[in-house]
């Protein structure tokens, strides 16, 4: 084996320039695939983390997946009903204490109850439609990252100010209001209540910043005339992977619709999958092209070394040895390329990780998310070795079948 490797190494050493080009071809393939995989997985992880931080892992809302059964259908045994006026049902999760207690029994994570509704905010003669979110500030902070988005005041103040209001900075900008000012909120049914701005947040999501406000749960229940009612429960789990399971169980237990973050972002997950498929296709194409380079150089060597092949065969090297020599040549190029490519990929990823973007407006300075993983290197190197092995094998088989007599006869 060592002897065959030495012969193979001698062959490729004597074709330095072509060898370098082929090695570079493989190296580029491996390098780019590693860098791209790092960037792809990095951005995917980055995005997922941002997403998971921004929304509850599981959210239970006051909806059913199917329309509620009407009293008429329970009373009479009929196939279908027409012209029924559906029963007015008070929406919301009733008995929230009981529901929360039931969930706390088994859910491993933090829970927060919310009541959200629409209200009109009035200040200095201007009206803005707002989504008002009634929360228990301590619990809310345990399930969301709103604390990190606070620009002025503090979210905890909602717990000490009964009519406190934390509002997006865009909305106050429009109104000309600031922390400490008092604003009036009016519900759809005409109830008006005065709130005092205790904090400003900036999430970077424009709709939230323009029209979302947090207030203590009790105050919102009064404003919306829904005493002791909530309409969603947000859950932040200790183990994110359990989200689907927990959502399914909560839905079965409470009868309300429970949505996991994965279900809520199904389209996004599919997009990630498609993106990965595209990436591996492109990387595969690069490596196939590199494989052609190897095929070319090994074929040339086989052609040029026909006489050496005849010599080795006449000396008593079996066909399998001849084949091994040329497969080894392909593999040596592949290994050199894989090593150089891994280094190139590492360099590229490291460099990309240092690139910083400064967005002009809201979002703070950011950099390309690069995820370093051995798996990327192993996959890329294995693919490179596989393609170089195949690229060496095809001409190697031809070399093994060369008939020494033909070459010896034809020698001049």
């Amino acid at each position: 084996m060592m002897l065959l490797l030495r012969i193979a190494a001698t062959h490729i050493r004597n074709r330095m320039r072509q060898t370098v080009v082929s090695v570079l071809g493989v190296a580029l393939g491996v390098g780019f695939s590693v860098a791209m995989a790092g960037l792809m997985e990095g951005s995917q992880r980055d995005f997922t983390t941002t997403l998971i931080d921004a929304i509850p892992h599981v959210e239970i809302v006051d909806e059913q997946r199917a329309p509620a059964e009407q009293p008429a259908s329970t009373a009479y045994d009929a196939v279908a009903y027409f012209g029924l006026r559906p029963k007015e049902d008070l929406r919301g999760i009733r008995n929230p204490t009981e529901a929360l207690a039931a969930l706390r029994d088994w859910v491993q994570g933090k829970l927060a109850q919310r009541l959200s509704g629409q209200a009109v905010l009035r200040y200095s003669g201007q009206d803005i439609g707002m989504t008002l979110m009634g929360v228990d500030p301590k619990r809310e902070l345990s399930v969301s990252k709103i604390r990190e988005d606070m620009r002025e005041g503090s979210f905890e103040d909602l717990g000490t100010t009964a009519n406190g209001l934390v509002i997006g900075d865009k909305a106050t900008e429009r109104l000309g209001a600031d922390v400490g000012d008092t604003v009036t909120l009016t519900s759809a049914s005409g109830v008006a209540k005065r709130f005092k701005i205790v904090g400003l947040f900036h999430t970077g999501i424009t709709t939230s910043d323009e029209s979302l406000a947090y207030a203590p749960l009790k105050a919102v229940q009064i404003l919306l005339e829904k005493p002791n009612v909530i309409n969603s429960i947000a859950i932040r789990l200790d183990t994110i992977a359990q989200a689907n399971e927990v959502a399914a169980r909560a839905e079965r237990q409470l009868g309300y619709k429970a949505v996991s973050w994965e279900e809520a972002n199904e389209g996004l997950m599919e997009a990630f999958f498609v993106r990965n498929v595209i990436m591996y296709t492109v990387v595969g194409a690069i490596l196939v092209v590199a494989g052609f380079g190897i095929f070319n150089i090994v074929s040339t060597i086989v052609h040029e070394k026909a006489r050496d092949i005849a010599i080795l065969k006449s000396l008593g090297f079996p066909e399998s040895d001849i084949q091994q020599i040329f497969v080894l040549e392909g593999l040596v190029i592949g290994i050199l390329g894989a090593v150089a490519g891994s280094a190139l990929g590492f360099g590229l990823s490291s460099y990309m990780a240092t690139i910083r973007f400064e967005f002009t407006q809201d979002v703070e300075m950011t950099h390309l998310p690069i995820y370093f993983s051995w798996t990327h290197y192993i996959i890329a190197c294995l693919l490179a070795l596989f393609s170089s092995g195949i690229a060496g094998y095809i001409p190697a088989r031809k070399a093994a079948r060369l008939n020494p007599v033909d070459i010896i006869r034809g020698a001049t």
Partner: protein
Amino acid sequence: MSLPAEVPAETSALVEARDLTRILPAVVPVTLVKDVSFRIGRSEFVAITGPSGSGKSSLLYLLGLLDRPTSGQVFIGGARTDDLSPAEMAHMRLEKLGFVFQFHFLLPEFTTLENVMIPMQKLGKLSAGDQLDHATALLADLGLEDFLHRRPAQLSGGQRQRVAVARALANSPDLILADEPTGSLDSVATEQVFDSLRKIVETQKTTVVAVTHDMDLAARMERRIHLVDGRIDWDRQQG
């Protein structure tokens, strides 16, 4: 003339050809060798002669297991070779046969010493140190002790051909087959190579079968097999 293949060959014959025929398949098949039979013993020095196209080289390739006969058999060391697999034939070439061709056929990227050591490394019977000693001794016997680390391109034609002889001897074969070993050499180099082949027969009890069209050289060998049109015209011992 035809013997059944089952008849065991006598042990005295190192090489035996029985009704060897080699026909190249083509639209008009070409007969290279036709019904050739002979026996060659140990430590013989045999010339195969004949006009060009008489099948000398083809016969040599058949004896060297580089080619398979269309019919007939080659026995080496008393053993049939027609039922050997290509890998077994390769191993027999490695262990029992040595070749010297008209053109030196050395591996150009390897030094003289490495070229001689390659068959030993492949066979792997000697330790690395013994391989080096053996190769050095072989080359020294052929007067090449000063050229151990040169590449083939840095040697003269005669020197290259002697390296090829040393390589043929690497695994101490029973039989050396030479195809026009002096065909491309001047008279001085021819003499050196011829002498080295004769010395092998005398000192190592190895049989040398050489194809040549040099009648002068052929006349100086012990036995001569003359081919015409792929058949043996005559086969005689000479003084």
